[in-house]
């Protein structure tokens, strides 16, 4: 680690800009509550959705979040995350709707090319089925524009047609803070209240607000294999390949998703404060360091979003 960074202590880092971000997020969460009839908040138990929930608690008062939480379950989750998700929803007194990719597979609406295939991309099908089932008109998501280049182009209120498709060349202009939330039948909006937050902002906020997270975000010992520079976790779904050497390493996850395409990074960071310092020094992006599915092609996220992906 760079000597310069070691001299920075958290007390020297300003948190005041977090108030402006929180203000914007609360304003957007209230706008969704007021402008739509059947909104829902996508809740995975991950750090971004937990930050949104904290803002929602402030916006609406503890225990009074006016929309259900929706989880699209790939069946490939880390059990610690699922358990944390259920616990948090119960604590908040929030309604939690879970719809699973495996149900879509049973219905035949999702067909896998091979059994071990990552299911992240298939979430879109299950998500659209849930939208139709509950007739959701707005889905709040924790995506950030700093995550990925296609995300950087997306509006905060992102209009989707009846196929859930995003049209990057035909987005509604977003002027001042006047949000055009008008919809035709069958259409919906994806809304991103933490669009303007960065990974560092999220961690500073978690540290400031003392937000509880699933333990996997913090350093723990785990069996991994080094595959082309990525630390692939050894799980029943992701066993080591022939000739790969299993090692035990101190790691943490920067992002938590489908087990089959989420990798941890080597880290000894045990607290949110440690992670703030580590994020300051990071030279790889959150996705670049951890997501195998974004690297297949330059425009893979853009393509998936056009297909209805979040």
């Amino acid at each position, binding site marked *: 680690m*760079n000597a*310069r*960074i070691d001299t*920075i202590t958290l007390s*020297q*880092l*300003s*948190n*005041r*800009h977090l*108030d*402006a971000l*929180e*203000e914007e997020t*609360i*304003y957007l969460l*209230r*706008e969704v*509550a*007021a402008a739509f009839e059947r909104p829902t908040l996508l809740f995975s138990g991950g750090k971004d959705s937990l930050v949104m929930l904290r803002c929602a608690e*402030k*916006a609406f*008062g503890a225990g009074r979040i006016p929309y259900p939480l929706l989880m699209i379950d790939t069946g490939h989750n880390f059990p610690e995350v699922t358990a944390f998700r259920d616990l948090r929803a119960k604590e908040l007194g929030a309604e939690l709707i879970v719809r699973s990719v495996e149900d879509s597979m049973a219905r035949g609406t999702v067909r896998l090319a091979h059994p071990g295939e990552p299911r992240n991309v298939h979430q879109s099908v299950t998500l659209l089925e849930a939208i139709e089932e509950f007739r959701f008109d707005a889905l709040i998501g924790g995506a950030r*524009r*700093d995550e990925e*280049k*296609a995300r*950087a*182009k997306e509006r905060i209120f992102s209009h989707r047609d009846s196929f859930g498709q995003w049209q*990057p*060349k035909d987005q*509604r*202009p*977003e*002027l*001042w*803070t*006047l949000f*055009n939330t*008008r*919809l*035709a039948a069958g259409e919906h909006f994806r809304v991103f209240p933490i*669009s*303007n937050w*960065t990974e*560092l902002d999220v961690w*500073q906020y978690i540290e400031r607000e003392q937000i509880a997270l699933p333990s996997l975000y913090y350093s723990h010992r785990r069996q991994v294999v080094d595959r082309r520079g990525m630390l692939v976790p050894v799980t029943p779904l992701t066993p080591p390949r022939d000739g790969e050497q299993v090692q035990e390493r101190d790691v943490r996850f920067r992002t938590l998703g489908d087990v089959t395409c989420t990798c941890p990074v080597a880290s000894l960071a045990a607290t949110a404060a440690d992670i703030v310092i580590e*994020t*300051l*020094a*990071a*030279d*790889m*992006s959150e*996705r*670049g*360091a951890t997501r195998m599915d974004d690297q297949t092609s*330059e*425009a893979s996220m*853009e393509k998936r979003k056009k297909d209805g992906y979040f």
Partner: protein
Amino acid sequence: MTTINSVAASAYAPSASGQNSAGISAEANFANSEVKDSQESGRSQKDLKIVNAPPTDHDAALRFITCGSVDDGKSTLIGRLLVDTKAVLQDHLAGVQRQGETDLALLTDGLSAEREQGITIDVAYRYFATEARKFIIGDAPGHEQYTRNMVTAASQADAAVVLVDATKLDWQSALPTLLPQTRRHSLLVHLLRVPSLVFAVNKLDAVADPALAFTHISAALAAFAKEAGITVRATVPISALKGWNVVDGRAGWCDYIGPSLLHILEQLPNTAPETDLPLAFPVQWVEKFSNSSDTTQGRRAFWGRIAAGLAQPGAEVQVFPSGQRARVAQVLDRTRQPGDVAAGQSAGVVLDREIDISRGDWILATAPPIQSDPQGDDFDAPEPASPWPAQTLLSCTITWLDEQPLVAGRVYQLLHGHRWVKARVQRIVHGLDIHTLAEHPASELAPNAIGHVELQLQSPLPVAPYARSRQLGAMILVDTASNRTAGAVLLR
């Protein structure tokens, strides 16, 4: 790190002319201290590895847009800002290496359609930070056909950097003719009241006599700005390709004594909230205290972001459109803590009596009582006028955003605050030349066109000229058939 208190009062200028483009005299001592300052600052230390250090002396990020024509080097400039502030991480940088060369422009054009065509289509938002400040770049396209996207980005911007390509100008002339795009982008920024405008004269590394070129181009920019009534915060010579004067200063280059573009941006103010106006509060969301047994202060809180003025307990207010009056019993801040809340902040307002108020209504200051004339009688004294008088006939400047042209006689949905009303296009007074803002007759507004339009509203709205209030003077028009956001409306 720096001693600048007010950018407006400071002078960033080519020393040859002693004038900056706003016509403010340069203060040589001040400018010299700037250079010394920037050389001593952490940014010039190559070993500094803080990639995205958070701010220390600004509460909110500076949102700025970059304007310029295709090939003026806009994407290269943004790439340079991101790379030189270490905001680009290694995996992203690896994605823009072509035969060992880094193509900075590829960092920003993220969509496959943009890469195919080599142009920027829509606004992208980029994030970076220095030790002094966080930034959000609204990366708006330069093509005339995407004027709507530039207007979108400008509507939320605190500042605009207008790029000027030195190689495209007759810089040997004492007063070179500026490109239409420079005029167009500057005028749009001015029209939308973006608080700060900075000219960045780019590609000066590619001209034979950069000092002469910068002096002549600066003079032309200053003359144009004066003629158009535009206040310019700074004019800075840069080479986005070489990285000169973008993040790191290059003292004395082009005879320019002053801070780098980034250092200028670090000092610019955020958009000031409209706190010095009477209260105007658009009701965003109504919360019913269904479980509350306390009925003494009304049983609902009205939430929203204060557009203008200050909400204080005890203040008398009137509700629009019902006209009913009440007093503010309690004000809650965005996180539900009691207090006074000012323009720009989200608030919850509880009134001292039950009044029917819905989303879309406004809670407004009452007019101050009119002083009665002690010599005369009061019989002819007018009713106290609202500080925010409601209007049904609006004279507006409209930027048209939709593929379907605006036509006189059509009815659109208009959004003001959280209130939707129908608006009929009464007449198109005239179109505006988007290069000069000169008026000309027009029978319709085509996509990306700007015009003066009279709108007849189905019901009145408490509005104010955009020049007085960006919050009360801004509206959007939405096509009733397609629901598309069709027009950006600025009240004249």
